[in-house]
């Protein structure tokens, strides 16, 4: 995340030498970390469904996310459409795209048997690389950003400066999480999706078609990327290879959450956000990429089922 650079001067790393521990600084880092964490939750929700519930090794999720950001960017640049509205506009297309993508994945991997995970991850890496290069060829390697009235402003509370775009991301992300959690627990289709994650065979015996349900779920997981992609480009400029940084963040959040729990996703994302923010403040931006991966590694090694795991 580049937001660290925005406030790097406030951290100890900027001054060099030993850091004098200060409560103000820490509080600042925690507040920003919580906001950042909600944003991470928003970009991880789709993966929480596709990987967490459906067991699809979707390493191309961050690449799809960046792709959605570029769609939002084009709508904003060409037609002056607000990024969040743009994200909503592309959502139906993403949904259809997700339906098609799952069909392809199912026909080529899951149908053939047990090796799906291993070759699936290679497949999605291939897709991610293709998306990266196509974006580079189309837009170049420069960073792109969007314009909207709420970008660039900040709230001041005492000494603390809170960028308004993070507040927007926070609000939208919280709304999105609640919406998705409600969908999965209250609606018929949502419950069917959770059922298919628990026991596909049982569902088949009940006369339901697990594949259609999973396809629908993957469609939703992809559709969510519309808003997530909009948030991604609102929070910081986007470039074609940004997805690599988000492989760690999104998988860290989803694994830490314990596959498939939406509220768990929010909590895990906030933990990651706060951890990143504190490390940024204390040690500087150059350590930032390792935080999510180190957390992920720790969680995988110590508690593979996640903090709020649904499986033993």
């Amino acid at each position, binding site marked *: 995340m580049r937001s660290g650079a925005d406030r790097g001067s406030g951290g100890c790393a900027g001054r060099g030498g030993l850091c004098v521990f200060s409560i103000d600084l820490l509080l600042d880092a925690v507040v920003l970390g919580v906001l950042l964490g909600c944003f991470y939750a928003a970009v991880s929700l789709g993966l929480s469904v596709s990987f967490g519930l459906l067991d699809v*090794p979707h390493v191309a999720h961050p690449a799809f996310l960046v792709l959605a950001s570029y769609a939002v960017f084009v709508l904003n640049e060409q037609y002056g459409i607000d990024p969040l509205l743009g994200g909503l506009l592309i959502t139906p297309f993403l949904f259809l795209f997700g339906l098609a993508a799952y069909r392809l994945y199912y026909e*080529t991997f899951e149908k*053939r048997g047990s*090796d799906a*995970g*291993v*070759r*699936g*991850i*290679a*497949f999605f*890496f*291939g*897709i*991610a*690389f*293709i998306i*990266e*290069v*196509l974006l*580079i*060829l189309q837009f170049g390697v420069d960073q792109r950003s969007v314009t909207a009235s709420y970008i660039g402003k900040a709230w001041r509370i005492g000494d603390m400066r809170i960028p308004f775009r993070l507040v927007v991301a926070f609000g939208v992300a919280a709304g999105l999480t609640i919406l998705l959690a409600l969908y999965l627990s209250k609606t018929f289709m949502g419950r069917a999706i959770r059922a298919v994650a628990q026991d596909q065979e049982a569902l088949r015996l009940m006369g339901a078609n697990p594949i259609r349900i999973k396809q629908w779920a993957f469609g939703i997981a992809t559709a969510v990327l519309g808003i997530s992609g909009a948030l991604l480009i609102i929070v910081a400029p986007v470039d074609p290879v940004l997805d*690599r940084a988000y*492989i*760690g963040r999104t*998988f*860290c959040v989803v*694994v830490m959450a314990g596959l498939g729990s939406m509220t768990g996703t929010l909590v895990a994302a906030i933990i990651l956000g706060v951890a990143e923010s504190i490390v940024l403040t204390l040690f500087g931006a*150059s*350590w930032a*990429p*390792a935080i999510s*991966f*180190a957390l*992920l*590694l720790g969680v*995988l*090694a110590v508690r*593979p089922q996640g903090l709020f795991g649904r499986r033993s």
Partner: protein
Amino acid sequence: MNRNGILFWIGAALFLLIIALMTHFVRNEYPFFAGYVILQFIVLAVAWSILGGHAGYVNFGTSAFFGMGVYTAVFLFKVAGAPLAVQIAAAAAVGALMGFALGLITLRMQGIFFSIATIAATIVIETSITNWRYVGGAAGIQLQRPPVTPPFDGYVQMLFFVQALLVVLAVAISRYIQSSWIGRGLQALRDDELAAECTGVPTLRLKVLACVISGALMCAAGAPAAMYLQYADPSSAFNLNYSVSVLAMSLIGGTAHWLGPVVGAILLGSTQQLLTVTISSEVNVLVLGVMLVLFVVGAPEGLIGLLKKIRKEGK
């Protein structure tokens, strides 16, 4: 030694002889530059297949091992001006240790979780190196090659020959593993880890052993790269492209036989060299992605698998 074994060693000796003759009689330096990269990928792909092919554990940490090989060489060269052989030997030791650690940490993980953990480990190591000022930090470090030792005319020629030696070593190890109890044990645990464990296959020890061998070879393959480029920086030494390229090479060739990764590395490696020179490195990555998807979808057993299929149908 059986007939195949004798044939293999004659082939290996011939291969090294041709390489040695090339270093003496080819004047143009470019074939060595390009050939070096292809040989390096053969070592990496063969090493990767020891764990990824036999045991079915998809390691995305190739770049971590490769990068550590590079930086072991950089460190030793900066501290003591260590000669190339020492750099490679030390890198192999570091790789073996890393493989051991990786094996221990990731023992409980299976399938995709193992893969994700290896990506995670790569980034953590890369970040640590980036923050290590002594070996250049994020900006990288320039290295001055020492004078070349006599039988060779130029340093690149020597590196080319050294990498060819590593190829022979890697392939010999991989061949041995395939036909020994290690390979059979690994295949058993790939097919069904629980069943293998129950029938007395020491799955734990075998996995760690495969990690150690594979890691040592990958690190050794990375060590000469520091002198080859005369420069090292973390973001290119630990580039994810190495991991994905090597995975693609193994899958394209097929992992059922030791020859698969060799064929895959030669094919994809030379295509990449050609594309980088003629078009651009971006298109190179695009081709990598497309080939990966095509083969995973269309020929899951790789070229070796395709050949076997054709032969079966022909009979």
